[in-house]
């Protein structure tokens, strides 16, 4: 195998902490949208759909639910497989909350060389970096 080079990212894995900033504009949203616009593929776990729907309902429902559906339609959603469940239950440094571990395990399962994890969760970002992922926090 030849030497690996630093590559411009082709794929952004969206944690819910990033995707939720697309439901309503927040201070970081503009930079986030610019960052995501420079990356061709956007992926997440199918858990994202549940998280965004729950946020939309808790925040008032109605149009927010349509927005959540529209965001999810723009993201390749990956299933919650046996391998991902197994990896999510293994160790991360630092230890992760369950949903954060599932997102990390899904991103790791992709094994794409030019993938970045987009997250605003500090603990998850640390766990992603420790597991070998490139992590961006657009601010």
């Amino acid at each position, binding site marked *: 195998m030849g030497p690996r080079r630093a590559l411009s990212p*082709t794929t952004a894995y969206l944690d819910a902490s990033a995707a939720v900033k697309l439901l309503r504009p927040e201070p970081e949203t503009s930079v986030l949208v610019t960052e995501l616009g420079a990356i061709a593929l956007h992926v997440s776990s*199918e858990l994202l759909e549940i998280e965004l729907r729950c946020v939309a309902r808790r925040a008032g429902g109605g149009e927010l639910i349509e927005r959540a559906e529209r965001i999810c339609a*723009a993201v390749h959603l990956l299933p919650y497989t046996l391998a991902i469940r197994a990896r999510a239950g293994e160790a991360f440094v630092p230890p992760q909350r369950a949903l954060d571990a599932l997102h990390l395990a899904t991103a790791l399962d992709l094994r794409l060389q030019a993938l970045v994890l987009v997250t605003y969760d500090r603990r998850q970002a640390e766990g992603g970096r420790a597991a070998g992922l490139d992590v961006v926090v657009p601010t």
Partner: protein
Amino acid sequence: MGTAHPRIGVTKDPDLAAALDATRPYLSAEETRSEAGHVRRLALIGAGVLGKGTVDARAALDRQRLLDRPSVRPATRGLADLPWLEADPIDEDRQASRTLEWVRGER
């Protein structure tokens, strides 16, 4: 055709058959005279495109890898088209990020 180089076997599964059909119109009759020659030509073209390291070429490859995974739900639109992000003002008191903290049981 005789050759001093080692040969490799390639399985003509439905995906490869579809790839051969899809690319035949773009290649010359000479390049597609035999299926082995057609596969060789595609391999050299693909290596050339990927070898240039363009983001578009790598993104196309990664997209195919994603779509090849079982049970993936493919995106049907782009993230560029979210008009409310320009229309709505930033409201510090109604940030969805705070609601996510509640959803995730953090507060």
